[in-house]
């Protein structure tokens, strides 16, 4: 009996070590690595590898960031590479691939620390081909002496046109560097040529690729391999449990979590790596939360050929609804402001369709395509979607350029104050390339209204800066001051830039202003200290809410009713209070707050302002309702995700997440105002402040 068992085990072992189902090589019965004899390329580091240094590499990246180590426990032979890559640099080791067309999978083994590795194939300029990228991720195979197998999915190479191929390496988190051995490129056979496409609605790319900037990008190049059957359910269980235990608050869990978990369940039966990992990305997107996101994922191998240097926002197309009616669910989409190369668009022009559907419906269709997909938590807020249509990709925008085939506009004439009756459809591939000038950032502000210290109208780069001064076209006796800013990151530092600016501003306004206009139309949030500080201008001290986050009790669905919420507030108002106001506030100073796309600390700030006797909030709709913080998770090679976690309970007992702060005056930018060079929301705010001037 014993002999039979041993025989069976030995047979099993031989099957195991010799199986052709390996990602790369195999192990012999002693655990010695055996490379795939058919490997197309192999680096065992028995001798120094040839490195590639790009001509534009920084000086600090020029010296070799590796050495050959002689190790008893090298994976193959006795040589391994010890990497110690300088921060913000990468090491590149050349790989010789066959000159014919082929399809490959790369594997490598690393240990000690962490390693971001990718295969990069660059083609000759004459070929016109963009680079091929294939990232390597863990397969789950490890050795008892610390080696971890990394593997890419399949990638195709047009061998005859290759300029160079290399493995790009970034090491970190090792005590004394990161070991690398047995870099192997195995031949898989069938060559899949690079394909062009028109947009995400184009089926040319097939189910496992994404059309980005008119190029089919294989999704598998950016995600880990399909997990082995033996660990797949455990991996799905783990991901599902992070969502189930840690995500959200009362409204977001009730409304969005079930759909997300159903999407995760689908990962169990995924047939391809892209289906599996894109399934998880889609699940995260289905959580429909302002703080919740994935990172990594496919990217265009080269930027779009054309430029659409324009910004869009929600508005009221009062000059063109006769020729194209308003959508029953969504606001109209208007051009807010433009830079050079904007396809002839001007402020007040109207974007009526992308690929034949309403622009916001089109953004919603990207949920399983765009890994940067991002939603407000409040289900009735689409400001983030509108803002991302235009602007540069480096600010998270540029969706039309990346994913659309065509878009349809109604052009208007500011001289005659009329709009065309005939929509015009523009093909994205026909957009001309950039001719110069700054990329225009999208901040939902058609223009600025400070008389000094004005943000640049040529680029709208407000970002982390705070601009304040007298409001333009007002008189010194009116003493109306304003602030334009999007950043509430006080960082817990009362002497930092943001808190100092806010404290100085409020002191000046209390001393010398008769009215204030706060323009926060691209509120990126930050930390609660800055939000609290601003409220000290307008109301007495009180505890407005309690912050219960990250999620206090795993999987907590939140208070069942207002009474339960009230009990939570009462219990934690001393230890977890969101405290607003100040005894030294100015009860006579009118403060107009203009909002448009605002989330997180930029939810809390208006929440703390609203209801103060001399505050009036102007905006097109409620804020994002992102009343929580978040927990981050980082996997390998840039893949990661963040989950909103926790909720905020108001003094009324009402959980706040998922329901933004509604404006006191719901007002949309009007198309007719844009054509006349007016900023509707600012005009309304200024008018109100003038009526309410401090005596």
């Amino acid at each position, binding site marked *: 009996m014993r002999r039979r068992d*041993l025989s069976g085990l*030995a047979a099993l*072992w031989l099957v*195991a*070590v*010799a*199986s052709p189902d*390996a990602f790369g*090589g195999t*192990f*012999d019965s*002693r*655990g010695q690595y055996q490379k795939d004899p058919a490997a197309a390329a192999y680096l065992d580091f028995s001798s120094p590898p040839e490195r590639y240094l790009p001509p534009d590499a920084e000086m600090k990246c020029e010296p070799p960031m590796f050495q050959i180590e002689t190790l008893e*426990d090298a994976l193959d032979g006795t040589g391994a590479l010890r990497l110690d890559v300088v*921060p913000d640099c990468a090491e590149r080791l050349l790989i010789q691939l066959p000159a014919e067309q082929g399809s490959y999978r790369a594997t490598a083994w690393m240990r000690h*620390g962490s390693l971001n590795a990718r295969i990069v194939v660059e083609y000759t300029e004459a070929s016109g081909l963009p680079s091929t990228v294939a990232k390597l991720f863990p397969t*789950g195979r*490890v*050795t008892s*002496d610390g*080696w*971890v197998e990394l593997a890419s999915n399949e990638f195709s190479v047009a061998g005859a046109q290759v300029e160079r191929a290399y493995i790009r390496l970034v090491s970190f*988190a090792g*005590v004394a560097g990161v070991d690398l051995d047995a870099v192997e490129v195995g031949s898989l056979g069938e060559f899949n040529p690079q394909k062009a496409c028109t947009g995400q609605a184009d089926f040319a790319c097939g189910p496992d690729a994404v059309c980005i900037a008119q190029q089919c990008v294989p999704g598998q190049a950016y995600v880990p391999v399909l997990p082995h*059957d*033996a*660990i797949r*359910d*455990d*991996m799905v*269980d*783990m991901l599902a449990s*992070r969502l189930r235990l*840690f995500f959200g608050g009362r409204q977001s869990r009730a409304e969005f979590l079930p759909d997300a978990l159903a999407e995760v369940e689908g990962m169990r039966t995924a047939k391809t790596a892209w289906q599996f990992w894109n399934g998880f990305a889609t699940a995260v997107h289905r959580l429909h939360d*302002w*703080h919740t996101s994935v*990172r990594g994922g496919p990217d265009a191998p080269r930027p779009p050929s054309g430029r659409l240097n324009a910004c869009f926002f929600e508005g009221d197309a009062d000059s063109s609804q006769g020729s194209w009616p308003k959508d029953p669910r969504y606001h109209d989409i208007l051009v807010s402001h433009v830079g050079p190369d904007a396809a002839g668009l001007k402020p007040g022009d109207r974007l009526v369709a992308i690929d034949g559907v309403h622009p916001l419906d089109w953004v919603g269709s990207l949920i399983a395509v765009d890994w940067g997909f991002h939603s407000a938590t409040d289900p009735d807020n689409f400001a983030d979607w509108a803002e991302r249509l235009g602007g540069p990709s480096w600010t998270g925008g540029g969706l039309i350029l990346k994913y659309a085939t065509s878009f349809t506009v109604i052009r208007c004439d500011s001289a005659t104050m009329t709009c065309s009756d005939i929509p015009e459809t523009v093909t994205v591939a026909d957009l001309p390339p950039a001719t110069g000038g700054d990329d225009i950032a999208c901040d939902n502000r058609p223009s600025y209204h400070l008389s000094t210290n004005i943000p640049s109208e040529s680029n709208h780069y407000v970002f982390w800066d705070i601009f304040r001064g007298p409001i333009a076209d007002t008189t010194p006796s009116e003493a109306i001051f304003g602030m334009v800013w999007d950043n*509430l*990151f006080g960082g*817990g530092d009362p002497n930092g830039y943001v808190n100092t600016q806010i404290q100085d501003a409020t002191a000046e306004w209390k001393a010398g202003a008769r009215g204030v206009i706060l323009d926060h139309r691209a509120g990126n*949030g*930050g*930390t*609660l200290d800055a939000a609290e500080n601003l409220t000290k201008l307008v109301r007495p001290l009180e505890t407005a809410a309690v912050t219960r986050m*990250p*999620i*206090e*009790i*795993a999987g907590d669905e939140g208070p069942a009713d207002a009474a339960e919420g009230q009990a939570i507030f009462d219990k934690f108002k001393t*230890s977890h209070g969101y405290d607003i106001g100040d005894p030294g506030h100015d009860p006579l100073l009118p403060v107009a707050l203009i909002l448009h796309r605002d989330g*997180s*600390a930029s939810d809390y700030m208006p929440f703390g302002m609203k209801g103060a006797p001399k505050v009036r909030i102007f905006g097109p709709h409620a804020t994002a309702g*992102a009343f929580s*913080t*978040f*927990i*981050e*998770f*980082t*996997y390998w090679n840039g893949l990661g995700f963040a989950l909103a976690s926790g909720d905020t309970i108001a003094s009324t007992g009402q959980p706040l997440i998922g329901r933004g702060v509604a404006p006191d005056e719901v007002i949309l930018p009007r198309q007719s105002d844009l054509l006349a060079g007016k900023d509707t929301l600012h005009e309304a705010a200024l008018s109100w402040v003038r009526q309410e001037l401090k005596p």
Partner: protein
Amino acid sequence: MSRRRGHAASAAVAIVLACALSPGCGEERGVNPVPLSGTNTPDPVPTPPADAGPVKRTISLRNPLGGPAGNLFADGDFELSALPEGQSGQYGWRAFNDTGTAELSIKVETGGLCRTGLRCAVLEPATILFARGAAAAGGNGHVASLWIKMAPGDACDAARVLLVFCDTFGILKKLSSEDEPNADGWCEYGGVLPPKDSSVCLYLESHLSAPGLLDSAVLGPDDGTVSPHSGVIWPPPPDTSARMMAVREIIRRRMRFGPPFGQ
């Protein structure tokens, strides 16, 4: 529960299939879910033929996301918290200097050097680690465990492991351990907690003489299926309290209410 049993059964089948279909068999297939207590012994592995010579290494297949799935620590297995030098964020694990006044990067070990999963933390001397967690739902109490591979010569009390309220840092329990590491050099720390209505986190001070390893931190509902260490009530000395408050200040004051990932 029945579903979990179903998975376990299918996993048992899967391991045979895995060995039949995959190289590197001898695979440590049964590492997930991680038991809440006790050792994490790999499944029996096929033995190489007797005449093959000394075994250099064994190969196993592990869940790169760690586990167990019900872990109330956000990243107890340390699979989702490794960052390049100088980067930080609101991750499952965060490290601080020995006064708790500055955040540090965490070094990482890999593969079979770790107890579970693909990655584990290098526990350096004179550092503080903080692990994010949540309280058990349904009025359940808690069972906690954590494994540290000590530096040679260090006893298990070279690390102090506390369960604390995440927000106030009020100490809930000091996890207890054997006096000395096991034969592999690992100490297991454990403890139980009654039900809590605020989140439970882990605060750890390393007084190791040289770098060790930290892995497999698990916080689970105390549903009677395990026999954990009880842990001890532990009033902290003033210097420890000061360090804890310093860490708390960094975490609380910098808690972000804006886009993750620098978006």
